[in-house]
């Protein structure tokens, strides 16, 4: 068994009187695809923000390790510099810059002065962004901006990819393309996908971690988890098709 890429030990996060994440022990291994699901308020986005440094975690809240390195309390840019690519729930892009300029900024830190252009061209080709590459991102549709943000992640060639609701606001045809893309990313990187869309998770495959009331309810492969009675119950049965 390989060393965990991500490991949390007894991780908790409280906001006032609400315990959003409760003693979570989560492990992700090399090139594993893991979906983190749960109903609204289950704590999955809070856990995501703890992993990415967007929520400041102290040692009193537990520990977070990335490839064995204790990253508890690290800032987002320090975590990203380890080789982590992050896509947030609401598309976080630079609206006043063009698609090319967004990708350039993502690639520049990794690929330096000479390799950046080549890397941007590679990502543009891979995501089929050629037609909109000179347009300002603020002019694009929600779905296009989701894809551009995914491009920002790809341009960094990360070995760990954390995606928060990547399918939100994306149409059916785009969803299939997104799934294909995530599966391709997983060939070179471990991937965590946070989502509450059971259909999307089933199509994506891989192992699934179910969160409920801040804790991990169960883990297993997608079919096993999605057919579990407890999961169906917490997930409001009708949505778990």
């Amino acid at each position, binding site marked *: 068994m390989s060393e965990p890429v991500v490991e949390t030990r007894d991780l908790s996060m409280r906001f006032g009187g609400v315990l959003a994440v409760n003693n979570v022990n989560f492990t992700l291994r090399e090139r594993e695809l893991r979906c983190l699901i749960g109903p609204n308020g289950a704590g999955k986005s809070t856990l995501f923000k703890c992993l990415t440094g967007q929520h400041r975690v102290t040692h009193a809240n537990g520990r977070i390790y990335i490839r064995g390195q204790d990253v508890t309390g690290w800032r987002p*840019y320090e975590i990203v510099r380890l080789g982590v690519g992050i896509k947030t729930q609401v598309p976080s892009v*630079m609206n006043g810059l063009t698609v090319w300029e967004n990708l350039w*900024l993502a690639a520049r830190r990794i690929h330096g002065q000479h390799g950046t252009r080549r890397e941007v061209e590679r990502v543009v080709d891979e995501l089929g962004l050629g037609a909109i590459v000179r347009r300002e991102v603020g002019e694009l549709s929600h779905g296009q901006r989701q894809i551009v943000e995914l491009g920002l992640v790809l341009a960094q060639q990360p070995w760990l990819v954390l995606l928060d609701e990547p399918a939100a606001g994306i149409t059916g045809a785009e969803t299939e393309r997104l799934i294909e893309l995530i599966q391709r990313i997983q060939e070179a990187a471990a991937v965590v996908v946070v989502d509450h869309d059971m259909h999307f998770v089933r199509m994506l495959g891989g192992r699934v971690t179910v969160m409920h009331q801040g804790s991990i309810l169960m883990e297993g492969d997608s079919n096993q988890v999605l057919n579990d009675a407890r999961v169906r119950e917490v997930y409001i049965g009708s949505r778990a098709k």
Partner: protein
Amino acid sequence: MTGGFASAGRMHWGWFISLALLLILLPLGSDTHTPTLLAIWSLFALSLGLMWGYAGILSFGHAAYYGLGAYTYAITAMNTGESTAALILAVLVPGMVAAVVGAMMFYGRISDVYMGVITLVFALILNKFMGATAGEAYRIGSARLGGFNGIPAFPILNVPGDPSTQIYGTGLYYVVVVCLLGCYLIARWVLGSAFGRTLLGIRENEARVELLGYNAPAYKTAIFALTAAMAGLAGSLFANWAEIVTPSLFGLGQSVEVIIWVIAGGIGTLIGPVVGAVLLGMLKLLLGEQTLVDNSLVLGAILILVVLLLPRGLAPSLMAWRARHVVSGAGRSRSGGSRRRRPPPSGDSR
């Protein structure tokens, strides 16, 4: 504030050389006293415009660094008896002070509102402190700080290594012009570099830039320090022009004025702040010759009119108008006047 890498880093050499020639030839047909002051104010406005327009950082107390530059020059010149070290320190001291203040603000992750308050209060503290230094005890070496009367009679600029050859009048004008054009070139070079492009990213979405692995507070601290150093240079040149430094250099009026110059001239451009400083500076000097209308009232009215009528500022509006007419004119001449062409995208930051 829009405008991407291309417009931010593009150098319009034709315009730059024409402007430089105009400034060089100006003393042939005009007195240099007022143009020198306008060029100093332009440099001060350029420093704020670079930080605000391209990194999205608005300082309500940019005059703190202008005043620090002026005082550092005066104190050092009085102690050394010449200007070379004084001029260098007048750039370094404001830059280093801004690096410390900026690091505390940006690493402290305070919101824009609190940042505005801190920058303003910092300038006002310096203003109050310098105003309370009238006693004999307030002395740095041979320089008495002088309270509200400030520091007069310090050595003005001299040829480096030759304190007996002073630079004033037209000579000072040329020094100021070289400083202004040099800082413009530095600003343009910064904006064309990877550092400048990252600043544009921070202006657009700081959180995303951090999620791309950039240390945003370090970038913001660096541009804060660089523009404070430019403001310090402007302050030291002002000290040479006025031959006295007083606490009013740190005052609220000075900080507000430069903000109005930048807004009126055009945020997100480098030429806009210069245009704003020259036009409103000339107006201020004209209004200073009469007592009928209060100067501040007129400036306030102009700000309101500009925000309502030209929200992008004067320079970007003129550029957009010119682009629209030149391009549509070219389109008509090519197509026999039957077709209008779409204007180029906004954000030309000449």
